[in-house]
């Protein structure tokens, strides 16, 4: 599991060190009053919000109502995907294919990771443990929430609130960590006036949205077992859904529902069966399934009419060897539908039976209301890390189609009658090595795709990587990853548009090569303004024509965008906001 394309950088860059020094010297030189000023500003905005709320004039200033998450709003971005569907499609048209050439920078916010003026929480020591190092400066992988004119977002151990009109920081919360892999954080969840997020050392933390002050925190998994948490909490009704991550050791995966007021567990769903449950027959014994992984490490999607929460589960354990876990290993590498009231599994579809390549199925299960063979259908589509594109009936999990979205895949013996790829055992790691495409990063990965109902196209960033897989743990009961990977190369990365009715690639745009190029998987956003926002793999933020893939506008940000772009209307002006590395950019049409 986990997105290995998320690079580990050794240490803070020189500019970062300089910057934190600068902050410190400002602090030492008597700018401590800044903190008071911030508290004053925060209190002032709280008072203003209260006054406005009392006046009853501005409904938008009321606390976030979970019911408002049911459809894509235009004046806010209240949940990870903007709405529950995972489509990342906005009906806004102020910025459109005709005027996008004028799109200009509105503001920039560069992550302030300094503890000097931060609200500090956490259970860890003052000096972070070694495990928390090695990931470089914080990177924006979160999709910010925008509610009442404020953006809320996170990176490992940090949460920020930033004015959505100006990019000015309102508050910064810093979590002192006990450890855990600090590879990324997808963002925060919001219920009423409360913010929720997860930490790499597996705490579920709630903050007051107005001030950034902590309400409480609860431990959700044991960091000593190599669990680490990256997901963005999703709110359904009066529940907060959170999943854990981590696959360095063989530990069970689970998803929890927690109470937004107390933070206590409502239910927990394990992503592998217990003895006696249906699915247990796909494991050789209790030992293997109880340690079988399947981390639900990304946010899911929700159909309020069916009352089903859809989530993709992680890979089985041990990661790169199937020895000791013979069988399909349900419900790892599966798209599952859960009843959020009970946490009970309603249906499952396994996209990688008996995976041995780290190709989890965590990628967004996108909900499409479409037409198949002339009949309106409630569908679910996923472009999977294993190189395949799946369309299911989301009412019951029945298979509709499977295609290959990336040509280089070489690990299957075709599809079975249920549309599931049949793994070729010869492509499982061996002592002298096997050449496999894609590599463990996958043909795509966690960055959110987009579905545009106007074009009927599903957009996804892809990669045709090859790696050698060497079995290193020859024990009858291998543990951890059990094999080593050596990268070979890439046949090319591309942005692709897939017709959901046929699963065929309608257009494919090759991405940049050479210096500063990389990625492939990318966060995407499409709009009714006939625009598709993504990157070019070479450090440019790009608006593409969603019908053809032709670039219509771009901005050279220097590094590739690192999160899902979003859009909203504020004071009559449409903004497009995207993160690239340690900087958040807002674009709008000149006034």
């Amino acid at each position, binding site marked *: 599991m986990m997105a290995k394309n998320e690079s580990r950088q050794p240490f803070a860059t020189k500019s970062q060190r300089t910057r934190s020094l600068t902050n410190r010297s400002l602090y030492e030189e008597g700018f401590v009053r800044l903190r008071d000023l911030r508290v004053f500003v925060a209190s002032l905005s709280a008072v203003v919000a209260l006054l406005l709320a009392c006046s009853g004039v501005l409904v938008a200033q009321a606390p976030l109502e979970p019911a408002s998450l049911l459809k894509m709003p235009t004046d806010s971005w209240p949940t990870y995907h903007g709405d529950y569907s995972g489509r990342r499609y906005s009906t806004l048209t102020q910025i459109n294919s005709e005027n996008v050439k004028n799109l200009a920078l509105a503001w920039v916010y560069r992550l302030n990771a300094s503890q000097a003026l931060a609200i500090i929480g956490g259970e860890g020591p003052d000096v972070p443990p070694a495990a928390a190092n090695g990931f470089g400066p914080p990177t924006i992988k979160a999709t910010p929430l925008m509610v009442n004119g404020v953006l809320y977002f996170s990176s490992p151990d940090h949460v920020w609130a930033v004015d959505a009109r100006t990019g000015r920081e309102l508050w910064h919360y810093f979590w002192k960590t006990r450890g855990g892999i600090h590879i990324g954080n997808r963002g925060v969840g919001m219920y009423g006036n409360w913010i929720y997020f997860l930490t790499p050392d597996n705490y579920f933390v709630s903050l007051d949205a107005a001030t950034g002050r902590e309400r409480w925190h609860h431990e959700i998994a044991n960091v000593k*077992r190599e669990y680490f948490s990256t997901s963005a909490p999703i709110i359904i009704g009066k529940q907060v859904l959170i999943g854990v991550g981590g696959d360095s*050791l063989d530990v069970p995966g689970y998803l929890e529902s927690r109470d937004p007021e107390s933070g206590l567990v409502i239910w927990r769903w394990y992503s592998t069966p217990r003895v006696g449950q249906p699915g247990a027959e796909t494991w050789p014994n209790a030992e293997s399934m109880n340690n079988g992984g399947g981390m639900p490490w990304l946010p899911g999607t929700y159909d309020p009419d069916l009352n089903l929460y859809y989530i993709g589960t992680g890979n089985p354990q041990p990661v790169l060897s199937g020895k000791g876990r013979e069988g399909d290993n349900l419900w790892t590498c599966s798209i599952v539908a859960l009843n959020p009231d009970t946490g009970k599994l309603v249906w499952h579809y396994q996209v990688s039976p008996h995976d041995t390549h780290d190709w989890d199925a965590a990628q967004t299960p996108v909900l499409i209301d479409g037409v198949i063979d002339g009949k309106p259908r409630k569908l679910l589509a996923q472009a999977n890390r294993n190189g395949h594109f799946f369309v299911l009936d989301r009412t019951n999990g029945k298979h509709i189609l499977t295609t290959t979205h990336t040509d280089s895949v070489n690990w299957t013996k075709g599809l079975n009658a249920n549309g599931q790829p049949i793994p070729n055992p010869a492509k499982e790691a061996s*002592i002298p090595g096997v050449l496999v495409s894609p590599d463990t990063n996958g043909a795509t990965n966690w960055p959110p795709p987009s579905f545009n109902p106007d074009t009927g196209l599903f957009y996804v960033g892809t990669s045709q990587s090859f790696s050698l897989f*060497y079995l290193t743990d020859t024990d009858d009961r291998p543990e951890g990853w059990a094999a080593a990977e050596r990268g070979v190369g890439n046949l090319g990365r591309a942005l692709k548009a897939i017709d959901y009715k046929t699963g065929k690639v309608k257009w494919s745009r090759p991405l940049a090569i050479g210096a500063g*190029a990389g990625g492939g998987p990318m966060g995407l956003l499409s709009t009714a303004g006939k625009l598709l926002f993504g990157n070019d793999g*070479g450090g440019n933020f*790009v608006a593409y024509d969603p019908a053809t893939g032709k670039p219509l506008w771009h901005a050279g940000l220097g590094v590739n965008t690192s999160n899902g772009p979003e859009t909203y209307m504020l004071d009559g002006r449409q903004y497009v906001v995207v993160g690239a590395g340690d900087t958040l950019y807002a674009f709008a049409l000149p006034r």
Partner: protein
Amino acid sequence: MKAVLIVATVLISLVAAVAAQQPAPRPALAAVDPQFDRAAVDRGHEVLVSQCGFCHGSNARGGSSGPDLTRSELVQSDEGGKELSAFLRNGRPDKGMPSFDLPVDQVKDLATFLHAAIYLNANRRLYQVLDILVGDPNEGAKYFSGAGKCTTCHSTTGDLKGVGAKYDALTLQGKIMMPRGGRGEGPPKPAYMDKNAVRATVTLPTKQTVSGVLVRLTDFDVSLYDPDAKTLRSWLRNGDAPKIDVVDPLQGHIDMWTRWTDADMHNVTAYLAGLK
């Protein structure tokens, strides 16, 4: 004579029996991580084998009646033998786990061994690739000059002379797959300085052409390095102008990724590894 043979056979059997009881070889811990005292790890392993191995296996991954200790939450959560010590004093009699009255030092050593084993399971960057030379060098030679068409560019008496002495097997196999990249002497150089770097020709609107090593190509810009003038040049792009033609000198290797069988790859590796 017969007696000598019997003694020899017994000796060999004894050696084999002893070898069979040895645990699988572990990577040299002290070399990879100073947090574990290698001597304590070895002592801890002896404690495991003598006290726990009968039920939990000689590598702690579980045995005939005892569970896997390296996957145990209690062991994984233990700090320096503290929790382990408390547990061992009482055992878990209802599940057949007797109490153990071990000296504090032995429990500490046992804990060090278990934590080191867990650390090695969890840190895949420390995994050691095993002996990969299993291919048939003769088949490799045939493939090299036959179906693999390697002789189109290479010669085992020319550029590949003695290549098996130059690289270890793992590096060699990696270079057969993709010769570009890898660290040389001194500070890292930009990718375009690689002798096998991708080359490109830019045709300007004036029909003038500029050739060089491709540094970067996007929909919006292109950069070349001119190795003769030792300069970098870049142009903005608009649609397909200026026109860019790209040639990868390693295209032959890249095309092979979809053609190799793993057996052919192992055979060619074994063949080239033998060219000392």
